[in-house]
């Protein structure tokens, strides 16, 4: 087990190097730092001095890959590639284009993100599984059919609609929750409830339907028939046998998103004005702060790879038949 985890973690290294090279290529090769500086300074006739000044201020004034003017190791380390890309491997994100410390920002902003994402994840899992098992219990009836139709309709509506509509109905008309904003500490719950509820509803279509097929797949198997032929009641079959087995694909499927919960939801946070990592990223995109976008791309990839690793491990934990090799 331990050896496997080590091996898998080692396998993640070339992937991360690949991610790093892609971001480096995107941010520095497609457009030279000069182009970026010109873009930031805005005006069409920017003097070369202004560009040079901006580049020095933000640390873009060095060569991309190889510094001829330095000696020894510095030839490789005193470059943009080393300073802006390689440092990401030790989570040294540097400072943003507006001069803020990205690492500090991230560690401060991940808590509001978690406050939204974690309840949404846990309650979502409970709600979707209950919904799916309800449909499966009444399978073949009109309740099942209307449930499936509801799922298709829900997933055909843009998530933006739920957010805008929910904000309008619950905050503006009924004054149940504040429209947007956030407060740290326990007072946060007032700001968290509405985004979580909206997120739960928006995800019902896709997840509810998939979980329903997981249950149906399980219900067609032989052991279920055996259980029925032995005289078990339908709830007994469903909750005693089918639920436990269908949880295997459901749980292993969601493990991959657990690490990425930190990243927050881009649109949800930005609509509700929650100072998490999602709105951080959106603001960075809107302000064209490339340093932040670069850091978030890297962070997102690390978390995703971590999620894949956890998925593999969780398979062995819930299903002893699978051996890691």
């Amino acid at each position, binding site marked *: 087990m331990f050896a496997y985890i080590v091996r898998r973690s080692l396998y993640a290294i*070339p*992937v991360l190097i*690949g*991610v790093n090279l*892609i*971001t480096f290529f*995107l*941010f520095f090769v*497609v*457009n030279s730092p000069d*182009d*970026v500086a*010109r*873009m930031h300074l805005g005006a069409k006739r920017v003097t070369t001095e202004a560009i040079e000044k901006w580049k020095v201020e933000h640390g873009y004034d060095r060569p991309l890959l190889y510094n001829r003017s330095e000696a020894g190791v510095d030839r490789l380390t005193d470059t943009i590639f080393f300073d802006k890309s390689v440092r990401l491997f030790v989570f040294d994100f540097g400072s943003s284009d507006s001069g803020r410390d990205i690492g500090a920002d991230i560690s401060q902003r991940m808590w509001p993100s978690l406050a939204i994402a974690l309840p949404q994840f846990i309650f979502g899992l409970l709600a979707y599984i209950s919904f799916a098992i309800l449909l499966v219990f009444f399978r073949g009836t009109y309740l099942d059919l209307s449930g499936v139709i509801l799922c*298709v*309709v829900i*997933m*055909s*509506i*843009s*998530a*933006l*609609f739920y957010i*805008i509509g929910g*904000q*309008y109905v619950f905050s*503006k008309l009924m004054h149940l929750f504040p429209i947007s904003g956030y407060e740290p500490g326990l007072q946060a719950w007032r700001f968290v409830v509405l985004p979580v509820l909206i997120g739960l509803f928006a995800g019902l279509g896709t997840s509810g339907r998939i979980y329903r*097929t997981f249950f*149906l*797949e399980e219900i*067609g198997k032989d052991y279920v028939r055996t259980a029925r032929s032995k005289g078990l009641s339908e709830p007994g079959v469903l909750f005693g046998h089918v639920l436990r087995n269908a949880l295997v694909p459901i749980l292993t499927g969601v493990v991959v998103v657990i690490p*990425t919960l930190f*990243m927050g939801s*881009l*649109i949800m946070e*930005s609509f509700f004005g929650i100072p998490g990592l999602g709105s951080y*990223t*959106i603001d960075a*995109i*809107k302000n*064209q702060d*490339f340093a932040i*976008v*670069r850091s*978030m*791309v890297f962070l*997102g*990839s690390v978390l*995703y*790879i971590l999620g*894949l690793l956890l998925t593999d491990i969780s398979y062995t934990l819930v299903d002893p038949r699978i051996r890691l090799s």
Partner: protein
Amino acid sequence: MTFQPLILWTDALVFLLVVLVLLFALYARNHEHLRAPWRSVVRSRIAVASLIVLAAYTLVGLMDSLHFRKALPMQTGQQEVQYEATALSVLDLLLGPIRTQDEKTYSAPFATHLYAKEYLLDSDGRRVRGFPRLKYGGAHLADPVHDKGPDIRARVLHSLVQALLVVAVLSLLVTAALARRWRQPLATAAQTILRGRGAVPWRTALLMLALVILLVTLIANLSAAWHVFGTDKVGKDVLYQSIKSIRTGLVIGTLTTLIMLPFAVFLGMMAGYFRGWVDDVIQYLYTTLNSIPGVLLIAAAVLMMQVYMANHPELFETMAERADLRLLFLCLILGITNWTGLCRLLRGETLKLRELDYVQAGNAFGVSNFRIMLRHLLPNLMHIVMITVVLDFSGLVLAEAVLSYVGVGVDPTTLSWGNMINRARLEMAREPMVWWSLLAAFGFMFTLVLAANLFSDAVRDAFDPRLRAQR
């Protein structure tokens, strides 16, 4: 009036796609394993109904993909004909006046007066604050308060009659054609259709068609004198914007797939067929791309493209071309983030297929690897490709709206539902609220995505019998 056809990049690709689809349809006609599932698709009532909705959207999208530029009137002493800078499409011609009939600012659906107060001169020549009459919406009425209801009713009735006529003629034609094919008298064929018998649900198809035709006549009659969905902040007709957005949605939903398909199919097949280091390289490639969160990769790429476009304005002749290239690039980058799933599926299936006897036999006879992939593997992977293409479509249409909100979507000058929603977001906070652009955009998008979802369900059930058994 002279005009100059203008073929934008996406136009060319859209029509290439149409040609490919037609070629594929011809190919599938002669191959029973592809034909049979499609036959069972058109036997499902839901699939037929959604297919007609999709066809209506596609027709609008195709008409909107035929662009041209009108010639400017000749100045004296001018040798060459000059053309207008803005590109029009055939759809613009059909939509006629609603493109140009702009009001001053917001007006509600079927409004006769503006939504914002202005200083007006009353009959005595004094300045009072009030809602001015619209320039076009209901302008033909002398007494808007009393005549509005009857006018709208008359127009609805008019369109009902028109639609009824068209549908009657159309149904008669369809019935006659079917009667010939089934070798039945006309009356018997009509009975079969009306009772909903026969393999293909013609009754559903005709009903849905009638609904679409009714909507078309309603829009045609009502929008001639009213702003059916109101106007937006700068007075543009919202209905016009929603209809023009159809093309953008369709282009993103289809061209993305067209772009990613060659990569996904060939890399997936190569990885599964050659195995060894080729497999390792391709797997590494898609794991790496896949591990970057999609939205962030798109955001990064689009930001970089913006920088590039800002620094190289000389590459783009007109605004339309610039917006068009940006749309194409968005499709490209969406394709890059999307191909990994299909590639992995195809790799897995190829791994299974390559062990089968006929592939082994091909190897033993010395058939070249490329030929085996093309002749023996690809046809047997087609069903996976088709399911994925259809399933991806609705997700891509929805993604456009989110991306436009984040600010990395289509060009702000391109008409798209995402841009409409993005602009309308602040209008919800206005007092009194402006809700129509938002609702129109969501409504148009919902219809398309729902039809696509229902259709893709039917396609998946038809091509994947294992799943059908579970339903």
